[in-house]
């Protein structure tokens, strides 16, 4: 399902008319997309499987007279990003899971001090040093966690390299619109795979922000900070942040659906798992099963209402992840026990096969077949298989 073919040469007359696909590696495509989006500065630290992103930036950013620094650690990289972004610069950092854990501290500070920045996490297997294989085990971390305190960060999950290119530009726009860090949650396959893409680059417009640090010339000094020692003041700040998160939840939900119109079984998957699921849907439909895919693109805000509406007409939902079951918790919250939920996950750097997903779909279809349709437990937990 990951296309490895190179683009074939076209006659010159045709090449003039249609943009020619280029073979791109995910990490490099995201790096170039950030450059084309107007990224002023990149800070990083080598880690597999995102190292090509850093290497691309090491070559390209100095060529363009922009900033590239290989930091002493992920702590160093993201704090450099904090400093640069506090001056209003458009800043990118990237890492993979263990590095993301080190970046958690500054994510909390940047959320608190409302500094926009884009962070790409090319997930690998965990916990601990784990493996360098692709994984989606950082879903909890990205959507619920990283650092301390009451905050949220928009999380965008690409499912193809073309989409990764588009989402990179979108991420800068969302970051600046809401003054927040934004995570692009990719996985080792998204980072390492090569496929022909017609990259559609975009440079989001820059709005004068009015908070950024430029030196106090003919204005009062500005402070970018997260410290509010008076509890009343900090509570007011938290109310302000929560209002912002409510606005993001209202306006920034993204998802895509395929074959949902007649679907009895809805597969919920994102990123590489969704790519596998697409192949599984084709095979399952060949067997006469009416299956569709609901693919969250924004993991936070999670498309809860949209999924609930889609699942209303379905017999069962099958969640597929490269984790032991993380997004499935948001699916349960979204569906509130109204639809039975099944789960299939692989961990540790393993990728589910289309065959496994078809099997999970067949199982879900059998268990929830109309002649058996007794009384699925209210929260669907009895129907969940691992």
């Amino acid at each position, binding site marked *: 399902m990951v296309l490895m073919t190179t683009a074939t040469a076209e006659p010159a007359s045709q090449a003039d008319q249609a943009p020619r696909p280029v073979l791109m590696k995910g990490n490099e495509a995201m790096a170039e997309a950030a450059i084309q989006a107007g990224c002023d500065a990149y800070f990083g630290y080598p880690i597999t499987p995102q190292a090509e992103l850093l290497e691309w930036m090491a070559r390209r950013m100095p060529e363009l007279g922009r900033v590239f620094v290989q930091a002493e650690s992920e702590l160093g990289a993201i*704090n450099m990003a904090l400093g640069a972004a506090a*001056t209003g610069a458009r800043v990118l950092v990237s890492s993979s899971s263990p590095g993301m854990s080190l970046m958690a501290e500054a994510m909390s500070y940047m959320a608190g001090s409302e500094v926009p920045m884009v962070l790409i996490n090319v997930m690998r297997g965990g916990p601990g040093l784990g493996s360098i294989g692709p994984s989606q085990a950082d879903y909890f971390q990205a959507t619920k966690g990283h650092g301390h305190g009451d905050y949220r960060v928009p999380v965008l999950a690409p499912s193809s390299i073309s989409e990764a290119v588009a989402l990179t530009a979108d991420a800068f726009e969302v970051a600046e619109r809401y003054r927040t860090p934004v995570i692009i949650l990719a996985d080792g396959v998204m980072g390492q795979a090569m496929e022909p893409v017609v990259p559609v680059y975009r440079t989001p417009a820059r709005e004068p922000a009015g908070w950024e640090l430029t030196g106090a010339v003919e204005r009062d000094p500005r402070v970018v900070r997260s410290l509010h020692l008076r509890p009343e003041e900090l509570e007011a700040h938290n109310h302000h942040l929560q209002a912002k998160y409510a606005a993001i939840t209202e306006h920034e939900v993204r998802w895509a659906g395929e074959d949902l119109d007649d679907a009895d079984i809805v597969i919920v998957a994102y990123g590489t798992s969704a790519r596998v699921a697409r192949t599984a849907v084709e095979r399952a439909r060949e067997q006469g099963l009416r299956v569709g895919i609901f693919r969250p693109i924004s993991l936070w805000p999670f498309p809860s209402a949209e999924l609930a509406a889609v699942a209303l007409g379905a017999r069962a939902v099958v969640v597929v992840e490269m984790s032991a079951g993380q997004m499935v918790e948001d699916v349960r919250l979204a569906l509130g026990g109204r639809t039975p939920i099944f789960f299939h996950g692989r961990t540790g750097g393993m990728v589910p096969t289309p065959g496994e997903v078809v099997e999970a779909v067949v199982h879900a279809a059998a268990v929830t077949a109309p002649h058996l349709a007794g009384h699925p437990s209210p929260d669907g937990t009895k129907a969940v298989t691992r």
Partner: protein
Amino acid sequence: MSTLTSDTRRVIYQRPEALVDTSTHYCPGCGHGIIHRLVAELLDEMHLAPSTIGVASVGCSVFAYDYLAVDFVESPHGRAPAVATGVRRVRPDAFVFTYQGDGDLAAIGTAEIVHAAARGERISVIFVNNGIYGMTGGQMAPTTLLGQHTTSSPAGRDAGLAGYPIPITEMLALLPGVTYAARGSIADPPLIGRTKAMLRRAFQVQLAGAGLSIVEILSTCPVGWGMTPTEAMAHVAHDVVETYPLGVMVDRLKVPATGAREA
């Protein structure tokens, strides 16, 4: 600084413009007030305030931005040299300094200061060493003197248990990326004047486009040390300097290495 008024009274001492007219949260006898003033005087005298972006660190001095009338970004604990690196790289014309305590710079932030120094980042580091974690209630710092009683070394710092004070500025002075490294004190007016000269030199190094400059300033924490302000100043003057001798450790702007740019 002196101005001639119409009735011929001469103003010889006044609040620098870069110092905010407000009351202080620092304890009586704390050295931060003196050091803030030195920084503010230099920002005025060297006309730096409008181009300055300061980096505040974690500790009592996080509130430096309440007293110094310049743009500031607040850093996580110890990360100020990394934050300053980010500011510096995207703002080549800004004047960038960090203001860090000894817990911040010499414990949790050692990686960040060492690598900012190794890269020769064009920033000035104001490193205030009072040998204790003041803000959290007077715990032992890596800079705490041997035998010194703190709330986390109640029997006195024991080298066998807690190791030795870190002469981190001397360590940094070894790195070619550090253009200027010096240690001053605020124990008496002549020393304060000398420290101001060190800070001025550090700022000049940055303006000259040379590498990292750092001035360590031996300061006081009377509350954390269990001393009166007067006793604390005497302690710095007579005891602390035994472990941390004053002086300029390196000034590479004066002696350019082969191929290095002239001052």
